[in-house]
């Protein structure tokens, strides 16, 4: 799959050790897990239409990647696609659902609301600012709502992450969240620079606060 490059921001370092046999087994295991991501039918608002329904439907066909077996029960699902706003009343239920999923389980947060609260961030007394305040998220797919292609891209990113991720010997590796796999020759710094430029151009936010956020980001990177 030429879409996803080898360098992933936040992907794991290669683990030392492991014989050839174990590596081969790991490859088979990760291959099967990556290619058989059965999603839980979970959608709260607009993103559910675009991301869950339109992506699964005839034109975009999630089935091509083996991910069309939508399971209504979290026990059988591998992938929780959070599609839509999470509010205070829903958050414990989302947590419950995630906890009831059988390992290994993966989470994709789609859309602005599930990433940050989106258009309901300010002045809302109930909107949770991102699903990652409730459960760990593996891949974020931005958009309001994201196009179906964006979810496919997010799914490929997750597949890539799984293929390179865990090993049988250490099943419970915690990964850093990944925004999305970047095209060749681009790093996360380029993206940040681009965002900063855009913010300068169309400043609708408090520039001082934005600068502070940028500094925090940079500090995090150095660590």
């Amino acid at each position, binding site marked *: 799959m030429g879409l996803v490059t080898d360098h992933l921001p936040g992907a794991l370092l290669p683990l030392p050790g492991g014989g050839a046999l174990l590596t081969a087994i790991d490859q088979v295991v990760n291959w099967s*897990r990556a290619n058989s991501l059965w999603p839980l039918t979970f959608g709260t608002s607009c993103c559910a239409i675009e991301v869950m329904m339109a992506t699964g439907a005839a034109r975009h066909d999630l*089935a*091509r990647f*083996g991910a069309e077996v939508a*399971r209504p029960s979290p026990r059988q699902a591998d992938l929780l696609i959070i599609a839509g706003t999470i509010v205070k009343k829903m958050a414990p239920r989302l947590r419950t659902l995630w906890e009831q999923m*059988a390992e290994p389980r993966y989470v994709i947060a789609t859309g602005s609301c599930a990433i940050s609260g989106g258009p309901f961030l300010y002045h809302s007394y109930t909107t949770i600012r991102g699903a990652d305040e409730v459960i760990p998220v593996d891949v974020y797919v931005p958009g309001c709502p994201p196009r179906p292609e964006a979810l496919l891209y997010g799914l490929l990113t997750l597949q890539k992450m799984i293929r390179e991720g865990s090993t049988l010997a250490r099943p419970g590796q915690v990964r850093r969240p990944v925004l999305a796999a970047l095209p060749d020759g681009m790093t996360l710094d380029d993206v940040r620079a681009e965002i900063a430029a855009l913010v300068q151009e169309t400043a609708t936010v408090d520039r001082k606060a934005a600068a502070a956020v940028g500094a925090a980001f940079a500090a995090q990177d150095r660590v």
Partner: protein
Amino acid sequence: MSLEPQSLASRTAAAVDAEPWMAIAFLAASVVGVAAFVTVLGLVLIYAERKIAAHFQCRVGPYRVGPHGTLQAVADAIKLLLKEDVVPAGADRLLHILAPVLSFAGMVLCIVALPLGPHAQVVDLDIGVLYVAAVAGLGVIGILLGGWSSHNKWSLLGAMRAGAQIISYELSAMLALLVAVLFSGTLQLSGIVLAQQEGWWIWRAHGAGVVAFALFVVAGTAEINRTPFDLAEGESELTAGFHTEYSGLRFAFFFLAEFLNLFVVAAMVTTLFLGGWMPLHIGQWAAWNAAMDLLPPGLWFAGKAAAVVFLLMWFRWTFPRLRVDQLMRLEWKVLLPIGFANLFFAAGLVVSGWYFFPTDAAPTAPLPAPAGWPSDGAAP
């Protein structure tokens, strides 16, 4: 050389005294063969269902995993094997684990009795029809136990629905199956196939065969919980129904049993009404019959079974689900009376000896070997 059907079991029995090693080899071959058959057929059926569904729905279906997505089911199988197995708190642990085992065992025990070809049958019981009907019942016990032991109300509802549904439709299936038995005069599955040498029961039985065929297909669909009778796991109603609490490999066994039961039903339909592995013979048309004999019997069987499987998949991707009371009404107030009437009509036909293509040969007489069939040195 004769084409007298021979099961692996009878060969083993024949070899026990003379060549004990051969007996062990036959036994091992049958066990390994069934294991491989179950696994491969399961994967093929799952892949076929997903591809066929996709094409009914104007899309491509699995495509990325292996060429044309052929390895999709393999990936799913490995993943399910390595998925966490959750037993919910408060569940009846033993029964919860036992349920998929029962479901799976019922399916395997059905498959070993099916005559897939004149020499491709593991056990040829003389009461084969009764046996298959009996062990298929293990499946419903599995579903009932699974739903009940999960300690989940959706599961319980699903299990109760499944229980009522499967046992009800078993009656219709039985009545349809009796028609084939009436005409064949034997309960042995290979005997029923041989009795259709002159024509398959579906058309040779003056309408009774067609009705029984339709009854059996409907009842069979209901017995294996497929749309439009998938009430036990109706997604939009009961979340996942009886297997809501099942994960990992135990869910996979339910899943696999469901798909292979699809094959079992198709194989039973083929055996009882479509002549099993018998080629399509029409009366006295010698040239036609000889041409038909060129295809090996195994292929005949596979072709017919595949056609029935396709029909059932077509049902699934076309029809909506019935409601639970409509389901019971259909069985008890429609299918059951029709089944009875059809049975007595068929009995009348048999007693009066009235068939299409009447033949002088006794139904179970040994057949001459037609040209083109694979010869088999092991046959006595």
